Structures are given as C-alpha cells and as structure tokens.
C-alpha cells in the first residue's frame, strides 16, 4: 500500500485546500459594505468555487490510490466520487437556498458554512483512522447545527437546532466511547492495522461488539437509521427547507460512505468478490436488523404525516433503510449499489425538495394540503406537479425512473448475497411507500384546488432546474450506461 508523507499528501488534498481558500474568500469579499449588500456575490463565489473543486477532483482522479497524511485519509476513486457528490449536493443546496423565500436574508456566513460542511463530507468518506472519522464527523455535524438554526427569528428553527445539537452530542459521545473501546482492544486507530490485528489475534468478542455497536450509534445518527433517527423529522421540519434537502442528501451520503469504508476495510476481508466479516461478530445480520427497522418504521410513519417536510424526512429514513439493506450484503456489488442509489436518491430527492420549496414559496404553507389541485393551477402548477409526480414515482422505485434502477442495484446485491428474506421485506416496503407517495400525487392531480389562483412563478431558472432533474430521473431510468460505468469505477475502495 502506498502511504504518503505530509508533503506528498498535499497534492491529494488539493481540492479541500482550494475549498478552504474559497471559504475564507467569501468572508473577505463580504467586508466592503457595497459588496456585502449584493445578494448574489457570496453564493456566486461559493458556486464557482465548487465547480473548480470538481475540476480539481477530476484532475487528481487518475492518481494512484494512496493513504495520505501517514494513513489518516485514503484517497481512492471512492473518495473522489464522494468529493464530486458532495460538491454537487452543495451546488443543489446553494441553488435552492438562493431561490428560497425563507433564506432571502442569508448572509455571507451561510454560504461559507455550506462550503465548510462540504469540506467535511468527503473527508468523512476518506477517513481511514478512527480519530479522523470522529473529527470529520464533528466538522460536518457542528456546521450543520448552525445551518439548521440559521433562521434566527424562527422559534421552530432554533428548536430544531437545539434538538439536533443534543442528539448529535449524545450520539458522538457514544461513538467516541465505542471508538475508544475498539482502540483498547486492538491497540490501533488505523483501519488497516485493525484488520491486520483481527486477522492475526484472537480478539475479545464482547468489548469489540460493544465498541462496534456504539460506533454504529454515531453512524446511525448520521444516516438517520432507526433507532437514532428521532432528530430527523423535527430537524427537517424546523430547518430552512434547502438545508433540510441538503442534510437529507449530503451528510447522509457521507455517513453511508464511512459505514461502507469502515466495514469493508477494517472489519472484513475480501475474498473472490465477497467480503468475509472477521470472526468476532456477524456484521451482516447487525446491519440487516438496522435496515429492516429503519425502512419499516420510516415507511409506516410517513403514511401519517401532514407536513411535507416531515413527510420527506420519514421518506428519507426509509431510503436509508434500503441502503443499509444493501450494505448488509457485504459484497462488491453492494458498494456499487449504494453509490448508485445515492446518485439516484440525490436526483430524485433534491427534485422533490425543490418542488416542495417551490410550493411552499408560492402557497406559504408547509402542509401537504398546499399541493391540492396543483396540476390545475395554471401552466406553472402543471409543470411542478408533473415533475413532482416523477420524483415521487422514482422514490417509489417504478420504472422507467432512476429510482427503479437504484432499487434494482440494491436488490441485486442483496439477492447475490442470498439474503432472500431481507429482499422480500425490502420490496414489501416499497409497496407501502407507494401508498404515501401516491397520496401526494392524488392531491396534485385528482383533487380540485382550494382556489382558482395560478401558481405564482418563481423564475424560469427554478422550473428549469426542476424539469432538468425530472429529465435526468427519466433518462437515467432508461439508459444509465454512463452511471453504471462510473459507479463501478467509484466502488473501487483502497483495501
């Protein structure tokens, strides 16, 4: 394995260095008074900075995989994938925030904080060391707390932030205790050394198991897996909608990245495409139990929601369950499946949140009754309703949408691993999800609007982005060869 010293590592770390510079630049450019009044300047800088970040990532894509900074972070196609993914999520959040009425007074620090989280996410995905896992997770979490509570006048937003902080502090406290137990048993923080230790030494099962379970509490909190999901509905509801959209896509993806990396590098050994869990504990069953609880609870509770943000929060919990289900398969297909699903989830969930922001802006209500008769509210209403319907059907997993392809990959991994019961639970859950997603479709298309008003336009670019995301949902649902190749390349973990 290629272990780099600090100086050589800098090249591998170039994208994050650049983004840190942009982070500072946003504040600097905000200093002159006449500039700070320009609402477009900070998001503009952030967006350009992210595009350059993506370009830099593509530049270093061809570098041979290596562990940088003496083993702290692993830079491999997997990490680079999450760099691009995080940047794309941040770009989406910037666009939604810029369009959102709630955030019309957002100042420079808001955009800078978004970038800060974006630095943290790929670092979490890259972490190869227990301490690094903890640090990057905190980087993501602490900045997210501020974003959630950003609407300083809003009681709901502050309440959500406080809940998020309390849950976050508890979860990370439990996690670091778990990490210290793992360190205590194995005597090392490095993922590869942990694996080597487990391979060669008869480990104490109980402390390791407890340590792992506690570590998973931290991971579970990040991906909002049951029973660590309780923060999600309140936070999604209270947070500015674009922030909720961002949390449901970006940090959640980073959480899945570290779950995959940690399990597949530190806790299992690759043999003929399958990952054999190391002797001490049946990780596959552990993840399967989490997965079943997560998707079932998410789906059944989503049925009863009346607030569109809470609705999407429970839906996002359910989707975390589907991805955990694939992670339980412990094979090469599973890594690709989760990566693929994250892309599809990114497109369809961002789209659904986008349509929700559009409707919340126009109707001034977060209640799902705001969607009533949406398709009959003029041309704008019809466009939003049709795109939203596509996103919802994609979330259900119906062809020809990317959501179906994503589910197809997930179930393929699970069936490949012969976890048939888990696959059956998974598909039955999708049937349940159809019920509540179709409920919104019914409101939009079958019901009559409360008044005759056409949906007020939010600008051409907003509906343009929705249509673009909807087009991507369908096009990738029919022809996804590019994604299939890219995700296959990105699932290449440094082992």
């Amino acid at each position, binding site marked *: 394995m290629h272990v780099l010293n600090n100086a050589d590592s800098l090249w591998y770390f170039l994208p994050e260095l650049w983004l840190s510079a942009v982070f500072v630049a946003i504040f600097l450019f905000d200093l002159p008074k006449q500039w700070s009044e320009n609402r477009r300047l900070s998001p503009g800088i952030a967006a350009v900075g992210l595009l350059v970040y993506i370009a830099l990532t593509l530049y270093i894509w061809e570098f041979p995989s290596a562990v940088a900074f003496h083993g702290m972070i692993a830079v491999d196609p997997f990490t680079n994938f999450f760099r691009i993914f995080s940047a794309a999520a941040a770009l989406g959040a910037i666009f939604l925030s810029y369009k959102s009425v709630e955030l019309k007074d957002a100042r420079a620090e808001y955009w800078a904080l978004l970038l800060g989280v974006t630095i943290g996410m790929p670092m979490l995905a890259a972490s190869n060391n227990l301490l690094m896992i903890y640090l990057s997770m905190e980087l993501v979490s602490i900045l997210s707390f501020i974003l959630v509570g950003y609407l300083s006048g809003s009681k709901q937003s502050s309440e959500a932030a406080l809940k998020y902080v309390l849950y976050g502090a508890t979860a990370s406290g439990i996690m670091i205790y778990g990490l210290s137990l793992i360190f205590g048993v194995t005597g090392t923080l490095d993922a590869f050394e942990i694996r080597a230790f487990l391979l060669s030494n008869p480990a104490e099962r109980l402390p390791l198991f407890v340590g792992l379970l506690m570590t998973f509490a931290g991971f579970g909190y990040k991906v909002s897996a049951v029973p660590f999901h309780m923060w999600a509905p309140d936070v999604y509801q209270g947070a500015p909608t674009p922030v909720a959209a961002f949390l449901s896509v970006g940090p959640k993806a980073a959480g899945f990245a570290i779950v995959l990396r940690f399990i597949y590098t530190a806790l299992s050994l690759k043999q003929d495409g399958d990952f054999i869990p190391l002797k001490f504990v049946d990780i596959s069953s552990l993840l399967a139990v989490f997965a079943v609880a997560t998707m079932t609870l998410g789906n059944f509770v989503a049925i009863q929601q009346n607030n569109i943000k809470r609705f999407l929060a429970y839906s996002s919990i359910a989707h975390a369950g589907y991805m955990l289900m694939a992670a339980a398969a412990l094979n090469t297909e599973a890594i690709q499946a989760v990566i693929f699903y994250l892309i599809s989830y990114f497109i369809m969930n961002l789209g659904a949140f986008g349509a929700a922001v559009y409707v919340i802006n126009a109707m001034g209500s977060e209640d799902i009754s705001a969607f009533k008769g949406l398709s009959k509210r003029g041309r704008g209403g019809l466009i939003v309703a049709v795109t939203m319907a596509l996103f919802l*059907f994609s979330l259900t997993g*119906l*062809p*020809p949408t990317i959501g*179906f392809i994503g589910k*197809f990959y997930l*179930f*393929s991994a699970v*069936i*490949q691993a*012969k976890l*048939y019961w888990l*696959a*059956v639970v998974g*598909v*039955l859950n*999708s*049937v349940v999800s*159809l*019920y509540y997603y*179709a409920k919104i479709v*019914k409101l939009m*298309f*079958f019901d009559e609007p409360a008044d005759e008003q056409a949906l007020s336009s939010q600008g051409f670019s907003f509906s343009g982005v929705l249509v673009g995301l909807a087009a991507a949902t369908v096009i990738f649902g029919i*022809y*996804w*060869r590019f994604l*299939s*190749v890219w995700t*296959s390349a990105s699932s290449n973990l440094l082992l």
Partner: protein
Amino acid sequence: MEHLPILTITTFAPLIGIPILALIPKAKVNLIRWVALLSTLPSLAAAVYIFFRFDRGTADIQMAEGPLNWIPAFNIQYYLGVDGVSVTMVILTALISTICIIASWGIVKQVKGYMVLFLLLETGMMGTFLALDFFLFFVFWEVMLLPMYFLIGIWGGPRREYAAIKFFLYTMFGSVLMLLVMVAFYFYSEGHTFNIIALQNLSLHQGPLSVEGGHAFRTACWIGLFIGFAIKVPVFPFHTWLPDAHVEAPTAISVILAGVLLKMGTYGMLRFNYQLFPDITVELINWIAVLGVINIIYGALCAMAQKDFKKLIAYSSVSHMGFVLLGMASLTSEGINGAVLQMFNHGTITAQLFLIVGIIYDRAHHRDINGFGGLASNMPKYAVWTTLAFFAAVGLPGLSGFISEVLIFLGGFKTFPWLTALAVTSVVLTAGYMLWTLQRIYLGKLPEKYKDLPDINRREALCLLPLVIIVVVLGVWPKPILAMMSASLDNINHVLLNPSNVATLIGWH
C-alpha cells in the same frame, strides 16, 4: 437489420403522437382526438401486416429484433419478437386501442392529458407482449401502471381515487415479487442473462436456477411469478381490485382493462411459469385447475348477484378468465389452444360488453339494472348489438366464445373430468345472468323517463362493428387465429408432457 423493424414500430409508434399532442392548444379538442386516433393507426397497420406475414408453421420466435446490448454491465438487452403465444395478443391490443380512442370521443375533461396517457398506455401494453428480455418486459409491465392509475383516478367515476390506488397497490405488490425472481434469474442462470429465450433453453437442459438448485427455491420463484401474474388475471383471491377498477374507470379504460390487461396475467404464466419452470408447473398443475374452476363458478355467482350493470360485466370477466386457467392447466393441445383462443375471444367480447354498458350510461347516467326496462322498444338497434354480444358471451354456437369454451372443456375433460364437469355448470349460470340482464334491461315495460333516449349512433356502432365481425367470423371459421398459435402452444405442451425431457434433465426426480 435488413427488414423494417416492424415490432419496434408497433410498440413505439403511439409515442410519436405525444409531442404532437403537447403542441396543440388545449381548446382544439377535435384536433387532439384526431391526432390521437392517427397515432394508433401505425400500430394497427403493423398488426395487420403481422397477421398476414406470420409464419403459422413454426413454434420459433419470428420477426425478432435484437438482441441488442442495452446495458452491458447487467447483460440487459433490447429484444422484441412474436411467437404463437404473443401474436394474437399483439393484434388484439392494436385493435382494441384504436377502438378505444374512438370510444373516448365523448371524453370532455382534459382531453389532451387523457390522450397522452392513453398513447403511453398503448406502448406499455405492446411492449409487454413483445419483449423477450425479462428486464425489458418488466419495464413495460410497470410503465403501464402509471397511465392506468391516472386514467382511472382523474377520469373515473365517483369512487375513482379508491379504485385507482387499489389497482396500483395490488399490481405493484405482484410486480415487486416478480422483480425479485427476475434478479434471481439473472444471478443464477448460466451466463447471467435476462434473455427469455436463452432462459427457456437453459430450462430445457438444467433449469435456469439450477445453480442455486434447490427444488424449494425454484418452487418459491414459481410462486412469486405466479402471484404477480395471478393478480393481473385476476385469480381468486387476488381479484378484489377488479370490480372496483372496472366499475370506476371510464368506458374506454374498462375496455382496455378487460380486453387487454387481464390477458397479460395469463400470457405471463404461459411465457414465464410454463416455459421457465416446466417441472414445477406440472407439479402444481392441479392448483391452477382448481383456481381456474373457483374463478369460473365464483365469478359467475357474483355476477348473478350484481345490480350494477358494469359490475356484472366485471365479474363475468373473472368467470371467463377462469376458463383460460382451466384450459392451460389441462396440459392437452385442445385445452391450451382453447385457452389462448379464449384470451383473444374474451378480449373482443368483453370489449363489446363494456362499450354497451358505456352507451347506456352516457344516456341514462346510471347503471342500475333494475332501473331500466323495455329499452328494445325505443332503441332497437342498440338491443340487437347487445343481444349479439350477450350471446357471444354466453357461448352460443356460431359465435367465437363457443369455440374456445368447447376446446377448453374437451381438453379439461381428459385431465380433470370432475373439475371440468363442475366448470360446465357455469354455462348455465352464465346464460342465467346474461339472459336475465337482457330481460330486465331490454324487455318489459319502458319507464316513462327513458322514452326519448336516442338509439345507438354511428360512432358507437363503428366501435362495435369490427368486434362483431371478428366474433362472427371466428365463430364459424376459427382457423386463421388458431393456426397462428397452435405451433408454439403445442410445443410448450410437448415440453410439459414429456417427463423424461423435464425430469431427467432437471434431475430432481
């Protein structure tokens, strides 16, 4: 590809109409209807072409297009083709679709959206019958659900929302099981493929799932597929979505549901259960026969109890689809040919029945059978059309329904004499509820308020005419349709009946 991709045209031609429709202003309702009608004609023309060019002497796939690589990572292919199992269904779909556009002329609410969804639905139906790649099949199968959901939910009757979601959930439940079996096929077939023909060839030698091997596993997969298809047929006890969906759907959509969609269930069984698991099919054949007879009797009894004209027709579909199952289960040449002929005949006959219900509903705005009477006196032409269709449904000799029912009974008697004897009693039941309905609606005293109901108009007659011609012609001369299917069906039957072929090669006996 040297020849014209006739099957691709058949499948995707309706989609060409969608962008054109999108450009037409909402107010030009008539133009929208004409464009939609024209969009269905290429498929109909292609179906006529297929009818004449189809080689009746072979059991092989014909006019195949592909297999072309679609997604190489999963070996997913674009592969269309027809054989004796699917060809009659393709022709039926094209015919019914065009008729339904004409029958939808009376739709006034959001005509554009209706026609767009309808054309999408037609592509989904065609693709389902033509696809020879399991993945492609599944995509078409599911694509059909979305337009159907909206067509019932927006243009349906008073309980449309309930009916739409019920239909959607039931079908989705079936299709997710199918999805899992499909993925299992891919992983456990030799050479990892979704290609149905390749999977069939594997099943002849060692079974497509023989890598995983276990008999229990193969049976579980068979049941997964069967439930998916049984919901569509619908087989008792999965039938409860049908009365709701058929009753609430607008006339043309009921026609599509009964005329085409139900057949997908039995088509799927013949294509997948029968040909991919011949051994398991033979093992479980008694169950198929029993379910078929339950459908026949239960459907007929339910129909008899209905007061709603449309619901009565809906339950008669349950009963008539039971004949298909019984014929398929008989494992005789007569039975299986009769079953597929019955699929075709039921499509043409039930389409007429639903159109007839639609005609009276448009005029009287209710469907209560007891609320009518004596309509024959002021709507004589309508009464004649109805009588013809009813007699065809009853199975009167000389009309097409008779031929397929006789074939099924002949085949059924050889294998299941007692069950078939039970099923034959339904002939009396069917005659009972059909003639009783005829009597209550058309004979007797005409209520005062219906004195001025106009008789059937030219457009309505135009919808019924081609169907009546087919029913009469096939009633006396069924050969053109039977000859198309028999080579393929006899081949399927041959594989099923040859235990050495099945048992030794699959090796679990």
